[in-house]
């Protein structure tokens, strides 16, 4: 969990990104980088544009200007599925579970692009070990899971694709306290195994405690960028976000 190598090419880079919803200007000249192997978190108040940033990275909204580079390739005009194919995975806001597919099928959807049957099976086992609750519910329809169960499923589904980069939008939302801790544990493990993570999280204390670096977004602009330890110490930030 040491600092990244600034000389390496970033896995993900946003340059001067401007995003609109209809006529409303949301992201304003956003610049950020995520280097391979990093765990970066994006903080910000409600409505500051965090989810919008993730949507822009994923291609669910198209920036009016600026570039999104993934692994050295400009992808801002590519489709979402293309980006996923290049190695992104996502734990989306609102979970976006396939409501009328079973839990198992939802997990299989995570591995949609993969063809290695045996290894998919392995990964599935691993996910079910991480979230034993899902194993109990394997044949239940995704849409009938409780909120927290869905969150677990969304996490598990993202893991199934063996991505290079996981984008997470509030992965611990709606989870019981016990699970929140477990969840962060898992995130950290995945990261240590080499997967790069870019995470939006409201639970800023916890997030920063496992992150390498962080950005702070406010009203659509990046207002602060630093390594995690420094952010945790930042007086302003603590007052504004950390609640103490």
């Amino acid at each position, binding site marked *: 969990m040491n600092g990244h190598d600034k000389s390496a090419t970033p896995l993900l880079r946003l340059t001067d990104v401007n995003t609109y919803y209809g006529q409303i200007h*949301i992201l304003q000249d956003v610049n950020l980088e995520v280097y391979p192997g990093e765990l970066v978190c994006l903080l910000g108040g409600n409505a500051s544009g965090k989810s919008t940033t993730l949507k822009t990275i994923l291609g669910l909204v198209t920036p009016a200007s600026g570039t999104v580079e993934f692994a050295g390739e400009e992808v801002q005009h590519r489709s979402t599925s293309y980006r996923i194919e290049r190695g992104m995975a996502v734990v989306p806001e609102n979970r976006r579970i396939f409501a009328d597919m079973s839990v198992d099928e939802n997990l299989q959807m995570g591995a949609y692009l993969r063809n290695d049957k045996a290894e998919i099976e392995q990964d599935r086992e691993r996910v079910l070990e991480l979230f034993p609750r899902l194993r109990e519910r394997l044949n239940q329809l995704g849409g009938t899971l409780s909120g927290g169960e869905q969150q677990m499923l969304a996490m598990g589904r993202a893991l199934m694709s063996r991505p290079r980069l996981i984008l997470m939008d509030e992965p611990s939302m709606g989870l019981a306290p016990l699970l929140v801790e477990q969840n962060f544990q898992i995130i950290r493990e995945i990261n240590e195994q080499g997967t790069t993570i870019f995470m939006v999280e409201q639970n800023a204390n916890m997030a920063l405690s496992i992150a390498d670096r962080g950005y702070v977004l406010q009203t659509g602009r990046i207002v602060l960028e630093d390594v995690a330890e420094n952010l945790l110490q930042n007086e302003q930030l603590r007052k*504004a976000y950390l609640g103490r």
Partner: protein
Amino acid sequence: MTEQRIGTDEWVEQHEARLATQSELRELVYGFGEQLPLWGRLGLLLLIGLFVPVLTSNPFHIRIAATIALMATLGVGLNVVVGYAGLLDLGFVAFYGIGAYAYAYLSSDFTGVHLPTLLTIPLITVLGAVVGFLLGLPSLRLVGDYLAIVTLAFGQIFVQLMTSLTRVDLSWVPFLTTDGPVNLTRGPNGIIELDSISIFGFVADTLTENYIIRLVVLILVLLFVHHLNNSRLGRAWRAMREDELAAEAMGMPTRLLKLQAFAIGAAIAALAGTLFAAEQKAVFPANFDVTLLITLYGVVVLGGLGSLPGVLLGAVIMIAVPEILRDIELASLLFYVGSVVALIGLIKPRRLVGLLLLNVAIIGLLVQVIAESIWPDSLAELPSVASVFPEFSVSIRFVTAIIDSLPEIVTSIVRNWLAIPVGNQELIGNIALAILIVLILIASRIKQTTQLLITLVPTMYLLALVWEIRLSGQESVTRLIFVGVVLIVLMIYRPHGLLGTQRIEIV
């Protein structure tokens, strides 16, 4: 990085500044409309409407206006059901039919009943509401497209019954003496010779009088529906359309709301039905078939679902466009102007349009010259351009004459420019049409400007050729092809309807 107080949120202060300005058709209409109070807007509408018979004594124009008024009234009713309450009702036309047939039964020699209009109209409107309510009852169990099919079935059943109930055995009905089967509807021959609307001795016999009645009813209905929509009822309908369960949980009785929407829509339809029957002085089952339903959906969706001005605009488009296209010369003009406008929209640096048109013109002449030298006998003889120009006299008539003969002039110029083959024009036209469709499909996929321009040159040539030798010769068919294309293009251009607001469906 600008100095900002972290933790505060400036969206609110910055909101206006962040709004990218963009001129919008919708803003244009509403910007103007919003300056006026409601009565002003409706008054303006009435004024414009009343102006039609003053402006033209041509009964065809008045008939178009009258049809628009009627379709708009129906559209407003349908809009309550589909636009506000979000119920996909495909049986709406049946209520219109019920209104019309009810009028026929209450005001004709067929039954021998001649009730005064002042009585029939409220009676039928209430009847419509009641039937709408009753049809709504079974529909409560159904959602979405299951509702659609049941209502569609209802509409079909209505038409079928009106067509077939010609030999009904009524001997089982007590207190009714009939000899043999009874003809209840006169089948496809319809019920004819209905009374005109008469109110306090004023009898609406002429088209213009009927038109004015329709106009007044339209405005009253608009007022009524507008008021409904801007009340707790309208809010509840829209809430229900968005999320039925949440609406229910917020204290809105969704079943009742649906029934109310059905009933109100049906009442308006039945009212429109009486106006229709009284003007046509007859009712036929064929008046109420699916084609009318299609038109009505066009009326409510084209303008923008849920928007009352949208309904008006939709009615104008759905009725006026096909009528204008009846005149093949006008259609020609529209065709060429439309093509050029489409080019202007399609090609980004606008000045390239000029270049393109120049190229097209040159290619056309080249083809003409080549064809003439190789197959001198295979080209059709053409009118000289000069012959269609109106006689030169320096007067105002000259200007109007030019305008009048503009379509002819355009056609004539085009026909002189094209190399029009004699012989089996039909076959040549069909082949050209096939190639043209493929070319258009290809052109629409090309992103690169140069390639696009190159593809468009033969496309434009073929477009003119196909029009001249194939399409313009078959007015009625061409008209519907045109209508189809207009519908597709309008929807693609404004997916939310011309005056509709952007809505999001899921998040």
